């Protein structure tokens, strides 16, 4: 028990906690970019032409 308490105040553990907090603070800066067209617009284009998919994908056998 004393060993576990000692570990919490140990340098490595404190360093881990500090880095975890630092990573969390970086969340707001790490963001993916996307400027592409919406799926609504993509599907509207196909719907407007009356397109109905005849796409089929052969699954094959599982071994």
């Amino acid at each position, binding site marked *: 028990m004393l060993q576990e308490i000692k570990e919490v105040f140990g340098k490595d553990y404190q360093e881990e906690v500090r880095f975890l907090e630092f990573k969390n603070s970086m969340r707001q800066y790490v963001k993916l970019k996307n400027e592409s067209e919406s799926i609504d617009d993509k599907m509207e284009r196909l719907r407007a032409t009356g397109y109905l998919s005849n796409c089929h994908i*052969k699954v094959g056998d599982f071994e």
Partner: protein
Amino acid sequence: MKAETYNYLCANALDRAIEDVLQSIPLSVQKHYNLTLNNLDKKKQRILEEYDIQRQSIREKFFDVGENGEKLIDIHKVSACFTSAVLKVRVFEYSETEPMDLSVFYSNYTLAFLTGIHILYLCMLSDYERNGEDKLAALLKKQATFVFPKTNRGHDEYLQGRVKTLALNDIYAIDFDVLTYADMLYWIEKYNKDELQKLMSADSITK
């Protein structure tokens, strides 16, 4: 997502994927394991709900949503979110008896994988039409499928490998990784674009 968009995706992606799964399992096997599609409309509604939850979460966490929240997620993430939603809902039902037929056990994982692929197909076709790439659009419609790369000797075929991966992650309760899955879908789409481009070039040479 607008209701019309989801209805269109259901009719042209999810329903196509359901047909593909049923086509791959002999009728006698379907009957033996009582493979059924009960309450499909309700399940489609649940898929949309699960999709929305997933989409909202990844949009808020991972994306720059713009000053007024106007920016969206890309279609690979959309397809990945749908794959995740279909996995959660378990569209196909069957008798869980032993010995189990693997194609039946994999049915929902296959459905999840193929739903994402069918969405990619529709988006690729729409993009060709938007960009005025009529020859490529016509070729894709004529092909009416998506292709997958050959795998190395001794490995599962690509599609089977992807389905097994989804199954393994589910069996071992590993969280679905939308970002990495979306990246895989990007490469599948690129592979198909490159193959179509080669077909078109070959077509031009022979004419």
